[in-house]
């Protein structure tokens, strides 16, 4: 059986576990919304009597409307239990309910005791909702700037493990397929990596190979003190079944600091670092199988561009030979 937890060269797993509690709470609130929404939609008369407002066509209409709102929040939360947006939608709904219940006290035929109980119940739920929403908003913000970026991607390349290993082991080859790298220079076993930063900022650091099993795997990590963004990586080469070449698996971990530099690093990797690495691996496959990175009329431009030939001297990232 294949085990899907990997360890780095120094024996520490570079996987991380996420707190489950927020997810469970979000789901609980989601089901609560669905239940309440269904009750309001299907039995508005019963709900009106329960919370002590007059049961008439107007209150039934309002309760059905609230039911639709609850169902929307509920389904949203069940789909994305950790989404601050859906949690805030519940807080907003609670506020609406409290206003409507407050209105209820002005109605003469209202039953004050039941209204009071219903208001207290909604106030309690509001507290839970507001707490969940606030803490999820905080978590979401924190996870964007301070969290380590950890990516694991794999691809199959129609070359032998030894051939892929040799290409990778010459680190100066990496920038030909890793889009964010400008260059890697190797002198006396220490390599200097230069990355393309945002705003034409160039970031550079030194790295050392920590593990080298010819034809099997290579691991490296940044040299302490040469960067504010400690990073390490490991690449494994395994024969693919059925004469299909080599399964190449890359694992990278970056630890960006909190703050502006962290944000810059996050930007460097785009919204989805795992997609960036997947594209890098696809380019590696192109280089090893076809000899070069394939360009299209649109892909040679840095941003969105219509698929048509470029003007001579246009701003392109591809090679116009």
């Amino acid at each position: 059986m294949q085990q899907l937890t990997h360890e780095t060269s120094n024996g520490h797993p570079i996987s991380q576990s996420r707190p489950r509690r927020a997810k469970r709470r979000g789901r609980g609130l989601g089901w609560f919304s669905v239940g309440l929404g269904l009750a309001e939609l299907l039995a508005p008369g019963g709900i009106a009597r329960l919370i002590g407002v007059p049961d008439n066509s107007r209150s039934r209409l309002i309760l059905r409307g609230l039911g639709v709102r609850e169902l929307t929040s509920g389904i949203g939360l069940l789909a994305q239990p950790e989404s601050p947006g859906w949690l805030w939608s519940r807080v907003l709904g609670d506020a609406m309910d409290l206003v409507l219940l407050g209105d209820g006290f002005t109605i003469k035929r209202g039953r004050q005791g039941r209204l009071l109980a219903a208001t207290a119940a909604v106030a309690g739920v509001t507290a839970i909702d507001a707490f969940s929403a606030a803490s999820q908003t905080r978590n979401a913000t924190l996870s964007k700037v301070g969290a380590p970026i950890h990516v694991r991607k794999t691809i199959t390349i129609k070359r032998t493990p030894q051939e892929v290993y040799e290409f990778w082991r010459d680190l100066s080859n990496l920038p030909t397929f890793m889009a964010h790298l400008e260059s890697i220079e190797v002198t006396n076993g220490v390599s200097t990596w230069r990355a393309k930063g945002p705003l034409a900022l160039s970031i550079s650091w030194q790295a050392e190979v920590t593990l080298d099993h010819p034809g099997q795997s290579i691991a490296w990590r940044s040299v302490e003190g040469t960067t504010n963004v400690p990073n390490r990586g490991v690449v494994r080469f395994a024969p693919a079944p059925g004469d299909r070449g080599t399964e190449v698996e890359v694992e990278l971990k970056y630890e960006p600091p909190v703050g502006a530099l962290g944000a810059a690093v996050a930007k460097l990797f785009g919204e989805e670092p795992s997609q960036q690495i997947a594209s890098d691996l696809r380019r590696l496959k192109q280089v090893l199988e076809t000899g070069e990175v394939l360009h299209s009329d649109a892909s040679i431009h840095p941003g969105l561009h219509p698929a048509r030939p470029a003007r001579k001297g246009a701003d392109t990232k591809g090679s116009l030979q």
Partner: protein
Amino acid sequence: MKANCWYGKRKVIVEDVPDPQILNAHDVIIRVTSTAICGSDLHLYNGFIPTMEHGDVLGHEFMGEVVEVGRNVKKLKVGDRVVVPFPIACGHCHACQQGTTSLCENSNPNAWMAEKLWGHSPCGIFGYSHLLGGFAGGQAEYARVPFADFGPIKVPAHLSDDQVLFLSDIFPTGYMGAEMCDIKPGQVIAVWGAGPVGQFAIASAKLLGAERVISIDRFPYRLQMAAEKAGATDIINYEQTDVHEALMEFTGGRGPDACIDAVGLESHAHGPMYALDRTKQALMVEPDRPLALRQAIRECKNGGIVSVSGVYGGFVDTFPMGAVVNRALTIRSGQCHAHRYLAPLLERIERGEIDPSFVITHRLPLADAAKGYDLFHKKLEGCEKVVLKAA
């Protein structure tokens, strides 16, 4: 150079764009002599395929003369006359070596976009959206062709452009549609759609030995072409005849041995399902209308094959999976692996077994591309296939 560019729903403009340049060492540039409008271009024209950009050069059926070669090109020389297959394929990856070139693993620089929609990425295609690579197409005076030693096929001087142009897509696509039916002597094949791909599916089913080939469409001129030129033995106009009753009659109540869907995502029909699918498409909850496909599945004989050549882009609703499972049907599909059919089909043309030019109804200068799209889309003037002459 002049090129036909996409500018949104039902708007194409022939305008001046820069000449193509060699971008990779395995590229050639060709001067386009003939190019055609494909039924699948109508899906772009009608706005059904996502990830198009205003200004994209259209066209994936084209041929011409090599005018420039990249430094790693070994087989082609300046002056060679070639037809270019519509899938862009490297020839080196596992998929290409298996002969499944429309699944080339190296030819889509925007593979990540295709993965988001379809799970994995197929090959890149000329002039067919950014999710299939963002390559400029061939409805232009010049075109850049990557992997030139693997894709384009040289064609002999004694065959005219009109005879060989359709090797680029619709002839191999129709042929593969018929080949996927595993036709055995005595079999009956039904083909939904008598557009150009349907015509070649019919002709190919005959070439592959089908006993009877039934063409189903709603345009009398297309059905007439199917019967007189492609070799259909029977035709059904579904606006006049009940398709089910007719197929039962033609097959002794068994149903066709194999059914080919040569219609795709913009299919027409009568009745509430059509109205429902149209509405869902308009509301963008169901991008593709699978009416022909549903009928093909229902009508196919027990244990038969449903071969899908028509293009689908996204999702379909109310798919009759119960019929597929309980009646042991096989569904086969795919964008055509055109490369593997080029040489054998060129041979059939040279031997005179088929002259693919029979589908051409309109020859227009490239400058009139917009008119060609309009005629083809509205099925005006008996339009079956429009060829644009660039030079």
